């Protein structure tokens, strides 16, 4: 009954021009994750299209964030964490032991719920990861910094105080700086873990507009609790649900279809619950 791994439906009208030709970038096949004895989610099969915004929605504790951390193997940092299944990103087998996680994480940026710039200056925050990935030339560095700050619309706000501590910025600015920090590394994909939930409504709106502006150039996977936001920005959506204490993916598809004509009764209930 539960529809999983729904293939990309062709009969739905395109929501946004950037995703006219859905082209799979990430393929997740029967992915499960355990923290020691406890299972976070099981049997998630999902494909994520290149250049689109895919939103992961669902109640708390259903494994959305854990799912996100599998894609860039941040799960390696948690000693008791066991991942089973298969993830392919652009033909790269992510979970294979010989995969170079450092390269992987450079290709896949991640934005966290709480803005977390390093306790360094604004410039150093952007410069330090770039240097680490082999960029030494000063002019190249400063142009990369300017480009990425312009991309997130922060350049005009901070260009005169690049050497000020990043922690002195407001929450929304910090979050945009974190996005710039990821973009500077020229990633192909961005993972966002509720990037707006720790921000005030106005900053949240700015960051949301920024995310929309990145559509097409980057593949974006965003976890959000804000269904209205997911409706506004997402091309595709996937709904996670907790069943018997274990997270499962219960419905996936075009965002428009999922929000307006959900097939799973649980989806209907969840969406109307928020609606009503």
């Amino acid at each position, binding site marked *: 009954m539960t529809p999983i791994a729904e293939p990309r439906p062709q009969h739905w009208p395109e929501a946004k021009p950037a995703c006219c030709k859905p082209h799979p970038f990430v393929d997740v096949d029967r992915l499960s994750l355990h923290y020691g004895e406890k299972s976070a989610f099981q049997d998630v099969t999902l494909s994520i299209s290149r250049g689109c915004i895919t939103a992961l929605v669902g109640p708390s504790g259903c494994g959305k964030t854990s799912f996100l951390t599998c894609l860039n193997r941040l799960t390696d940092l948690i000693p008791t964490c066991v991942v089973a299944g298969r993830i392919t990103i652009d033909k790269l087998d992510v979970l294979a032991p010989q995969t170079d996680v450092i390269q992987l*994480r450079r290709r896949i940026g991640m934005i966290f719920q709480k803005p977390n710039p390093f306790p360094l200056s604004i410039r150093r925050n952007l410069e330090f990861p770039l240097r*680490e990935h082999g960029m030494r030339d000063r002019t190249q560095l400063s142009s990369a910094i300017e480009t990425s700050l312009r991309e997130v619309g922060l350049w005009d706000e901070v260009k005169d105080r690049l050497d000020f501590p990043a922690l002195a910025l407001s929450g929304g600015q910090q979050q945009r700086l974190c996005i710039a920090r990821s973009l500077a590394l020229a990633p192909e994909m961005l993972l966002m873990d509720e990037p707006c939930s720790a921000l005030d409504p106005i900053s949240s709106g700015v960051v949301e507009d920024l995310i929309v502006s990145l559509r097409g150039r980057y593949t974006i996977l965003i976890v959000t609790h804000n269904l209205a936001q997911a409706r506004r920005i997402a091309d595709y959506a996937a709904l996670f649900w907790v069943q018997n204490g274990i997270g499962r993916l219960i419905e996936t598809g075009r965002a428009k279809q999922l929000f307006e004509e959900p097939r799973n009764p649980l989806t209907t209930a969840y969406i109307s619950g928020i609606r009503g």
Partner: protein
Amino acid sequence: MVEVATQQPNTREWLAFVLVWGSAVLVTATFCWLLGDIIWHGLSHLSWIFLTAPPENAGRRGGIGPILVSTFLILGVCLAVSLPIGIGTAVLLVEFTSDHSLFGRLTRRSLDVLAGVPSIVFGLFGNAFFCKTLGLGFSILSGGLTLACMVLPILIRSTEEGFRAVPSNYRLSAAALGLSRTTTLFHLLLPAAVPGLLVGLVLGVGRAIAETAALIFTSGYVDRMPESLLDSGRALSIHIFDLSMNVSGGDANAYASALVLIILLLIINGTVSWLATYGLHRKIVTV
């Protein structure tokens, strides 16, 4: 009847009040007595010449120049050895080992025991291992190495605290940016852990510079200016001990030496707490 019931707790409260304030006053008074006595007798002998001149007549006259040099050399050897090992071990315990692994547990347990080992036992060990087995003899090197063993647990404990105080999202976001663990460690974690490291440094230096028993049989008694690390050298604390116990008429210089030792400790303490507040201040400004 009711009156008695309310009376009793009041008496008890009053008694407790007196006892608590009494013990605080007693402790403060003793401390002032001790410090006042040493400052009173020591200050009159303290001078630049006392700090630089060599001791004469077994220390009754003259100064403590060579003794200060030996003390700093011993301290230098101690820190040069214990700092890298201590920081390395702390980093391994916090960043590279899970708390429940066998290696981590064993290391922690053995460090707990090491922290409690009496200093005279360190002296015995240093004498047997560094002086005899390794053939370093009574030397500044032996003394410094013995002290290094002694301050290691203190250093490791506070450095560990420092690293644990670093928010875990630094590690996550660094990893998400594809930074290697080495880079993360040296560029992010180590600078953020500096306050803990400084605390450890103060405690370690404090313990090392105050130590006497572990040095008697390792660095020796010789009060000449040391010419190399393999020379025997007399630490300041041993000088005080020797003047007061073995040299009649050495009390005046012992007082002055004790005052110098206390001032040294205060300077080290003050410098680092100033550094810590300065660092902290900068952090507060950035938030």
